[in-house]
């Protein structure tokens, strides 16, 4: 089973607009999920130009806006569910 890729934007815009919270998310992942995701942090994904809806996260190349700690977990779960 392939891992899903979670790329959390750590560009200044995303970081200030709630992305700092997302960084703490890794700690809260249940182990069965932790093993199936590849989390990485990325410099500005280039999507925030005119404000947009940061913070952004890329899940397997799908861009998601306005992510929060809880919604990130939800999105990861959905993606895992769809992957099987």
């Amino acid at each position, binding site marked *: 089973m392939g891992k899903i890729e979670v790329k959390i934007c750590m*560009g*200044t*815009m995303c970081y*200030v*607009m709630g992305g700092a*919270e997302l960084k703490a998310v890794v700690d809260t992942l249940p182990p069965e999920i932790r093993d199936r995701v590849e989390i990485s942090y990325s410099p*500005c994904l280039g999507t925030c130009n005119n*404000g947009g809806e940061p913070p952004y996260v890329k899940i397997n190349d799908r861009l998601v806006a306005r992510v929060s700690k809880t919604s990130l977990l939800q999105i990861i779960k959905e993606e895992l569910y769809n992957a099987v």
Partner: protein
Amino acid sequence: MLYDNYAMLTKRELLIRIVKLLKEGNLVDGVKYIPVEMRPRDDKNISCCVHKDRYIIRHKIISILGFDIKNDEDIDLMSLSDYAQRSLDNKNTKEDILSVVHESCNACMKSQYFITNMCRGCEGRPCMMNCPKSAISFKGGKACISQDDCVSCGLCAQVCPYHAIVYTPVPCEEACPVKAISKQPDGTEHIDKSKCIYCGKCMQACPYGAIMERSKIIDVHKALTDPNKKITAIVAPAINGQFDATPGQILAAIKKIGFDDVVEVALGAEDTSRNEAAELVERLESGQPFMTTSCCPAYVGWVDKHAPALKPFVSHTYSPMVYAAKRVKAKDPNMEVVFIGPCLAKRNEADFVPEVDYVMSFEELGAFMIAYDVDVNSCGEQELDAEVTKFSRGYAMAGGVRNAIVNAVGDGYKTMNIEGLDKKNAALLKAMVNRPAAQFIEVMACEGGCVNGPCSLAPLTLAKRQMKKAMER
């Protein structure tokens, strides 16, 4: 602590938009579009309608521009563009460090115990039987609390077998450690300046973001761009918890915004440690039983206003901010100095320090970094001042000042640290006057220390982790 909430993000978005407009030189015209852009006509109103949402945004903008939001008439008569122009013309003379946006306040019920419709009107009626003030009666088969008689002891809620009684708090009042904020007859909150210690707890607690701090971003931006002015940023040690970067990278990033120089406040902490250690030894030798720190301005304010008996025991040594600013001004008296930190109370402290011209928060710094397209990890490294030790950067964390002092005087003294000014700690501190529990007491008003200040960007767990990492590098 209320993290991950949209009211906080609204404030940050406002700051970002305003600094961007400043940078483009388009504040006066551009500012008027902000309420419409941030609160478009869709079905996502926060309050009753889009107009009120926009009206609230408008008030928050006026506050950020540096004006009082109390004078309701003016606020309705003047356009945002006029306010922006006046702000650029140095007429933004707001004095209050904290003010309440009345338009977005007043949504809270007076704090009370409240019977929900989960009440089944049971035969046992323990709520009624146990109420010490006979404040509970039954009407139509449901319990009902007479708010005139209720003393909020909470017994009824404890004994109700159906958990039908809830307590509805007023978040800001609940958060304030010194009862400085309370309701006026019209339902809105009022901050009593004679009691407020500027800890910032109410501002963080309000789910409407209705409490705004005084901002100097307009003035700082003017100093940054005025060719006849020079400005140095002095940055609190807590900055090292805010980003995942080395201290050198962070300083370089701040410099890239356009400051003439960036200096670590930790450099001033070297002076504080040295002088405070000497002061401690001297005071103990002269027979004083203990001394507390003086670097946390919320704590010093608390002593002034709420625990005057402690005053003789508070150190007279200046805070690291003051020493850092003095060093900058000593080198170049024409240099303007902006302190950048996680702290609200520093805004008050700085009002009495001639060497500090402006105070800016980490949130505001974030807005500048975004507007100026600065990324902490890609600006290179600024060379660090060799005089700064890890003890000085450690000032940002609870226990850090204590470590620095122990490092200076040796561990032959009994020391302790207190973080947070909740009821328990307040009582503990007041008791020290008669029964000192240690010879040196570090006090910080924020739990966890400055890394958990009310104007920070990173949540505490992350800030602590990043702080530790930065200190090891």
